[in-house]
């Protein structure tokens, strides 16, 4: 690791004078005392008045630049050379494509400096997850390196194209590794772009990064890989821990899944439906009630990977000013999904702006911020007014799914009318006809 990663200002000057680089062994003299150890990188957001030394014991300590009388460079740091342990390569097993997007589901720690780097080759993946070699023959590909919160519709489109290539190339299944923040949106988006996909596509991530011994990444990845190789069903799903234990994974339908916890392993939940399957080391238990479609033939499958990002998701709140909504509607968007209150409402003073937007060719849809249950805009006056203004009620569709669908529908419809029709139609299990008892 070259240079003075993360050091600025006085700290950088001090180290530069000593001709020190990150990884070098230094003796830092402060008055009558000395500290000897390896110079480690500093985080971008930290101050510029301390240098950090990793002692022989492994501990890091920060030393104030003001106290330092002299820095002596004792030895040059050695560039770490990674030697992947030899592993079997999963030969003869079903082929599974692993598409990386930048989440740290597979990474190594450099204990020397604390840096974490991702695994990029099949060999590295096998060496990190030896069990992978027992379940599938893996072809990994880093498609992009983007934090989940920075993923955009164009990235969803790229992933859809990669999956289509994998289908054409005869892969038994596809894993997409991703940060979990916007995984629900991506799963919905791919469900529409890959409608009818004949193989299983599993989006996996981890709530505890894979540089920790307790990471959930290991089980999520192994379980999803073994299902990608052997499950009898097809479609787009999120695969994550079913509960806090490292025991069972839940397979959530891509259009009905939501991240409902900021940090827990079982953050992802199927809303309004049950998971389509559970995986454990004992095998796959498919939920017959949810009847996932069987695997199909590669011939005839075509992805529709285009998305139009000109759509907005607006959460209504008490006292929302009319000007706020008008600003959104006037920002160049072609469509809006509302997260309304209760059965699907926004305040009366906003109705007129909505009506004008629809009349001008905009698409406006209604979902509920209640998460559970279904909108019904015939019960109260405001609902009826909104229907009259041209708002499309989206039944029990999740707001995030509705946004992804709207972006897809806008890109794949010749007219606003057609886009509204697509929004109202169940294409990928995004709405259910019956509202079941909440668990």
């Amino acid at each position, binding site marked *: 690791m070259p240079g003075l990663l993360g050091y600025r200002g006085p700290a950088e000057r001090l180290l530069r004078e000593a001709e020190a680089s990150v990884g070098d062994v230094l003796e830092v003299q402060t008055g009558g005392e000395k500290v000897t150890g390896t110079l480690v990188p500093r985080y971008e957001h930290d101050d510029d008045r301390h240098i950090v030394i990793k002692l022989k014991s492994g501990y890091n300590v920060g030393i104030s630049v003001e106290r330092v009388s002299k820095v002596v460079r004792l030895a040059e740091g050695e560039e770490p050379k990674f030697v992947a342990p030899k592993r079997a390569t999963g030969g003869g097993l079903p082929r599974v494509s692993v598409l990386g997007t930048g989440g740290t589901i597979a990474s190594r720690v450099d*204990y020397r400096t604390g840096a974490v780097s991702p695994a990029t080759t099949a060999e590295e993946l096998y060496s990190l997850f030896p069990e992978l070699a027992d379940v599938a023959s893996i072809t990994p590909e880093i498609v992009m390196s983007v934090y989940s919160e920075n993923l955009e519709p164009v990235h969803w489109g790229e992933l859809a194209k990669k999956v289509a290539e994998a289908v054409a190339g005869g892969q038994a299944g596809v894993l997409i590794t991703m940060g979990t923040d916007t995984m629900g949106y991506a799963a919905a988006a791919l469900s529409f772009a890959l409608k009818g996909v004949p193989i299983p596509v599993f989006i996996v991530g981890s709530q505890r990064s894979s540089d920790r011994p307790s990471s959930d990444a290991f*089980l999520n990845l192994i379980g999803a890989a073994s299902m990608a190789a052997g499950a009898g069903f097809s479609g787009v799903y999120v695969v994550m821990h079913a509960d806090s234990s490292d025991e069972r994974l839940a397979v959530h339908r891509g259009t009905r899944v939501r991240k409902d916890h900021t940090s827990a392993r079982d953050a992802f939940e199927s809303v309004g439906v049950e998971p389509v399957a559970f995986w454990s080391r004992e095998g796959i238990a498919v939920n017959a009630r949810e009847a996932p479609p069987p695997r199909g033939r590669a011939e005839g499958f075509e992805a529709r990977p285009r998305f139009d990002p000109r759509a907005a998701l607006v959460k209504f709140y008490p006292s929302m000013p009319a000007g706020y909504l008008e600003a959104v509607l006037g920002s160049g968007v072609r469509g809006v999904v509302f997260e309304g209150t209760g059965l699907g409402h926004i305040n009366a003073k906003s109705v007129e702006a909505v009506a004008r937007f629809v009349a001008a060719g905009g698409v406006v849809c209604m979902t509920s911020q209640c998460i559970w249950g279904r909108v019904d805009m015939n019960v109260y006056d405001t609902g009826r007014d909104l229907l009259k203004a041209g708002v499309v009620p989206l039944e029990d569709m999740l707001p995030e799914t509705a946004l992804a669908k709207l972006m897809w529908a806008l890109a794949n419809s010749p007219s606003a009318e057609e886009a509204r029709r697509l929004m109202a139609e169940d294409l990928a299990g995004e709405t259910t006809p019956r509202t079941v008892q909440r668990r």
Partner: protein
Amino acid sequence: MERASLPFDPEACQFRVGLEVHQQLAAGRKLFCPCPITKSDELPLAFERRLRPTQSELGQIDPAAVFEFNKGRVNLYRWNPESACLVEADEEPPHPPSTEAVETAMLMADVLGSRVVDEVHFMRKLVIDGSNTSGFQRTAIVGLGGSLRVGGAKVGVLTVTVEEDSARVLKEGAQAREYALDRLGVPLVEIALDHVAGVPEHVEAVALSLGRALRSTGRVARGQGTIRQDLNVSLLGGQVVEVKGVQKLGLVAKVVRYEATRQMGLVKIAEEVKKRGVEEVESRAADATDVLRGTASPVLRRIIQGGGVVTCVAFPRFAGLLGLEPFPGVRLGKELAEIARTNGLGGVIHSDEFAKQGLTEDEGVALRALAGSDSGAALVLVAGDASRVVTVAALVAERVKRAPLGVVGETRAATDEGETRYLRPRPGAARMYPETDIPEIVVTDAMKARVGGLLPVRWEEKVASYSREYSLSEEAALQLYDSGDSGLFEELVSRLRLEPSVVAAMLVEIPVRLSREGVDESRITPEALGATLAAVDSGRFAKEAAVDVLRAIGRGEARDVDEAVERLGLKGMGDEELEEAIAGVVSRNRELIAEKGDRAFSVLMGEVMKVARGKVDGKKVSSLLREAMKE
């Protein structure tokens, strides 16, 4: 010093012991979340986890980490929301560290003359035995250097760190361990000392002094298990053995002695190995299940009939060395058995003990033929579940190969009997990396000044002042200090009329006595002690009854002193009632008094106490009785 207690001269053999002391802090909350520090008797929630080693940049995995993973272990965690939250469950990132705990560590650093660092960085220290749900312990250096006074000498301080305590072990099985999360995350301060000459009593004295120095801050938790010592033991400049978890101070010397003997024994065995000209130890493993199917050995028969397998590992030119016992109880064979036990098997059987284990000579011959070995070889039978046997056989071979080294660097656990047993290989140096979820703490001058203002009186002075001001004997003053209740003592003495020596004696003796009886000492709180002594002071019951009152509270039979008094029927005796009782006894015994005079006193005293015991102070009874007898 008692050099005689070691089978060798510690100085000539460079016998060294480095102490690491872990002291729980009396803090209002845990280190990385606001959970209260309390022991939960009920643990209604549970989850299961498997920990995996993570790979370093160099493609290497820590040997200790691989070891635990090879054991295929499942950890079951039980918890109660009253004492743990999602942070302990590793379902939420750590919150910013407790300022109180970090400042306490700084204070302890100050007490030891240790230099507080300019910036505190929390690290993740890999510990994948399951004792932490995350797979690492969060720990940070707060102070570097310093020294501890022990008698007239000084022992160097290496580091002062603040860290989280591990989960409490509930059950230890071969394939699964159970932990409670209530203790996980309790703030600890760890003091690592420079090594000292391994004279057992001296090491114990060092540990004692360090404990007292820490206690002087007034911020340490009280009760058993709140201070634990680890020992890094080595001799002749050989590999260091880390002995973890000596729970009682009084066991330190014993553990040092045990480990000294074990290590010197292994050195002597290594000398024997070298005498035979063995430089590189060879090994050959073969499946011996079929050969032993009809075996006379009851242990092996049971295992094979139960579907288990037996692997025979042969070590040429090792015959007699596994059973060789240079000191009582020190054998290479025992080391192998401990490795097997730690890995889920009952032990191993080696050729030096075939006859004792019921194997026939014919079986010995057959096994040697199988392993292609002559009678000069030692054989080790590893038997049990197939999934374990291969791993254990490999570990056994690995251990014997290192026999020429003598002492092998490893991590051992201290037992309650003062011995040590094998736990795991020593972790490599590369087991620490930064805890990125916790921003570093810049130690400001304001923080230093605040902590500086808390610097306590040195413990030696404190103890001397107790002897001086309260006329306590030096021993009583030390005992009071060590009890952890000296603060309570000062408070009680200032407001009660009881003699300081009486207060001191009660505070020292009652908790010890009840703890020996098995009473839950966490219930003998300072509040309960204070209330009990106040009740004695006001004459509600005699000081002899104090132990009964606290026992009732400790056993949960009474919530407080009032309930205990009620339950024990300790309604105090009024002066009038007492005088009446005395008068009655005196008048019934007129003849005896006339006959024996003062010598009748003890008989009469006994009679009065029959009705007054626990209700009135014995002293008061005796003086009143003496007066009554004079009349």
